[in-house]
């Protein structure tokens, strides 16, 4: 153990003796790790946000659609309401139109349910099903110069003359779930009755949100609906999450591939640094072997150099990555898209640990080959080396 510590100190001093090279190599690793950690933080934020959104929307609920995604009769809502274990069946109508000549996504739900879909920041909810009122996403409202109480004209292909609605409240926007539904379009929430009129879906619903009266009844309700109404597709929170996860996993795979390239580049940098170090120290390796250092001990010295570079680069990279992650989440992403994405900035030990493990593993692997070669150098040849 003492011998290993002594040799580790030897490796550390060797690195310290070449500060510039050590610093640059560690920086190379740090940049790779920083990109990985920052993307990891963005990914964590995205996941948390999406899970939160889905959870808020669905909670102990399921979404029912027809298998071909055609609208279904509102009668189905009544049928489903009577299914044992169901607390409430909420019809939802969705469609597109124009608000003050801007593309808009129209979401229509019964007024008493509207706050489950939209968090109101200013003003109040829609007062009644008949009221000519709407809720607007705050960001798009601001962009269009619309404030609380303004009158907006909503036009659809069915109501080409348009309907004037008073903006009752501004809602929170930026939810990824909403962004995924509406894209860069503005989101306008109206009562179910107004929605039926605007989108020509009287007596119809695009989807039905089912609330169960007890969480333990969830699977019973899902199975009951599936067996009774084979033409309907039932999505639980888990199903929606899984769908979202698969999209997120694809995004993750792309960003981690990009990060992996930078880590490979850092690994090549480490390999180069260790190879240079070994070339410079060939004679010293010969001396070490002649005074009794075993090939394993020589291997250990240079692997230790690689590991130390990895630890240094990993720590630097993790810290840089957290900072970069913060900037991306809080500054870059919100400015990059027309619709606002407000992701939570989550600091957990996970990115740190992962960053460190990846840095150390990459450095270890990239220093393995040159170190193995160093351990095999014959002392007599190393001593002759000038």
């Amino acid at each position, binding site marked *: 153990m*003492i*011998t290993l510590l*002594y040799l580790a100190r*030897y490796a550390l*001093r*060797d690195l310290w*003796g070449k500060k510039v090279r050590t610093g640059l190599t560690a920086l190379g690793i740090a940049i790779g790790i920083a990109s990985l950690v920052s993307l990891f933080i963005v990914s964590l934020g995205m996941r948390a946000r999406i899970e939160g959104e889905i959870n808020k929307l669905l909670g102990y609920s399921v979404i029912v659609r027809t298998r071909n995604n055609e609208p279904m009769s509102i009668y189905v809502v009544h049928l489903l309401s009577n299914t044992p274990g169901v607390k409430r069946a909420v019809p939802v109508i969705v469609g597109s139109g124009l608000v003050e000549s801007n593309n808009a996504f129209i979401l229509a739900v019964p007024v008493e349910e509207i706050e489950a879909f939209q968090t109101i920041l200013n003003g109040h909810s829609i007062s009644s099903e008949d009221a000519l009122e709407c809720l607007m996403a705050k960001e798009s409202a601001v962009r269009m110069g619309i404030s609380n109480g303004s009158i907006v004209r909503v036009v659809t292909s069915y109501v080409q003359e348009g309907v004037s609605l008073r903006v009752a409240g501004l809602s929170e926007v930026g939810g990824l779930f909403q962004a995924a539904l509406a894209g860069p379009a503005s989101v306008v929430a109206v009562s179910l009755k107004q929605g039926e009129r605007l989108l020509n879906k009287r007596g119809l619903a695009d989807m039905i949100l089912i609330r169960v009266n007890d969480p333990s009844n969830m699977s019973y309700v899902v199975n009951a609906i599936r067996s009774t109404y084979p033409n309907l597709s039932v999505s639980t929170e888990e199903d929606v999450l899984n769908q979202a996860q698969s999209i997120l996993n694809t995004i993750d795979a792309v960003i981690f591939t990009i990060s992996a390239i930078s880590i490979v580049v850092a690994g090549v940098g480490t390999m180069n640094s260790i190879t240079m170090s070994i070339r410079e120290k060939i*004679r*010293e390796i*010969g*001396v*070490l*072997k*002649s*005074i*009794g*250092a*075993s*090939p394993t*001990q020589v291997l250990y010295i240079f692997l230790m150099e690689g590991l130390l570079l990895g630890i240094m680069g990993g720590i630097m990279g993790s810290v840089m990555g957290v900072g970069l992650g913060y900037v991306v989440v809080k500054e870059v992403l919100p400015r990059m898209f027309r619709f606002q994405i407000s992701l939570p900035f989550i600091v957990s030990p996970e990115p740190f640990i992962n960053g460190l493990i990846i840095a150390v593993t990459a450095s270890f692997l990239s220093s393995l080959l040159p170190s193995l070669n160093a351990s095999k150098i*014959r*002392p*007599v040849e190393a*001593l002759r080396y000038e």
Partner: protein
Amino acid sequence: MSSPALECVNVSKTYLLGKDIEVKALRNVSLKVERGDFISIIGPSGSGKSTLLHIAGTLDRPTSGRVLIDGVDVTELSESSLTAFRKNKIGFVFQFFNLITNLSAIENVMLPMLLSRRYTLKEARLKALHLLRLVGFSEDRLRNPPNRLSGGQQQKVAIARALANNPTYILADEPTGNLDVSSSAEIIATLKLLNSFGNTIIIVTHNVELARITNKIFFMRDGQLYEEAPRSFLERMPMDEEALESKRRIQLDILKLERENIERLFKSGMISSEAYERALKNLEDKEARVKH
């Protein structure tokens, strides 16, 4: 009766340069070194001294013949066994000191002990301190790295390092080859002292002064080892007659060129007749010395 410290029996070493060219570095060399011996191997460059030293130090293997250290035949030992053997049985002193640059003087001496795993850190430090005192290393420089030590000081550290694991013998390759006169004298005195304390020392050197203090002098030429070097070699330069004659001719040629140069300068009036006479006299003196 205990076995010799080192015994080389009919050791030959042939190097291959390219595909066909064979270089016979050692030809049937036999050498027996008893415990407490202080021997030197002298000879011209390329005579095979260093090859013999490497083989005696288990750094290289003979093409044929046997090498026995402490009675153990090491000729066929595996690389890892040889490493263990070197660690415990052989101490090395090199011409260019070859200290580990990242370690301080005392750490360099501790290193073989720690590599052997036979010593604790405390024991290694204490023994290293005693060894450095023994070789006359100044104690206020214990923590200095090698680049802040003089050549003589570095070589003392190297000798202390060679003694670290109490080896069967010390192999010293030109230990004074890179030192000034006074440092050489100190190293020679140190080695003599260590031998008087019972350490077996084998030196390969060009330094006749150093060879003279050893108990036995071997002479190497063309890969063959002769007991007792020719007197003329000890008295003159460590070079064989043929090489010496060739060097003499080169020196005389240089002096001839010098004479021609002076005559040209005199004829063109660039130097005075007194300066010409003085330079000519100097040249004649030098020529006489070289011819003698």
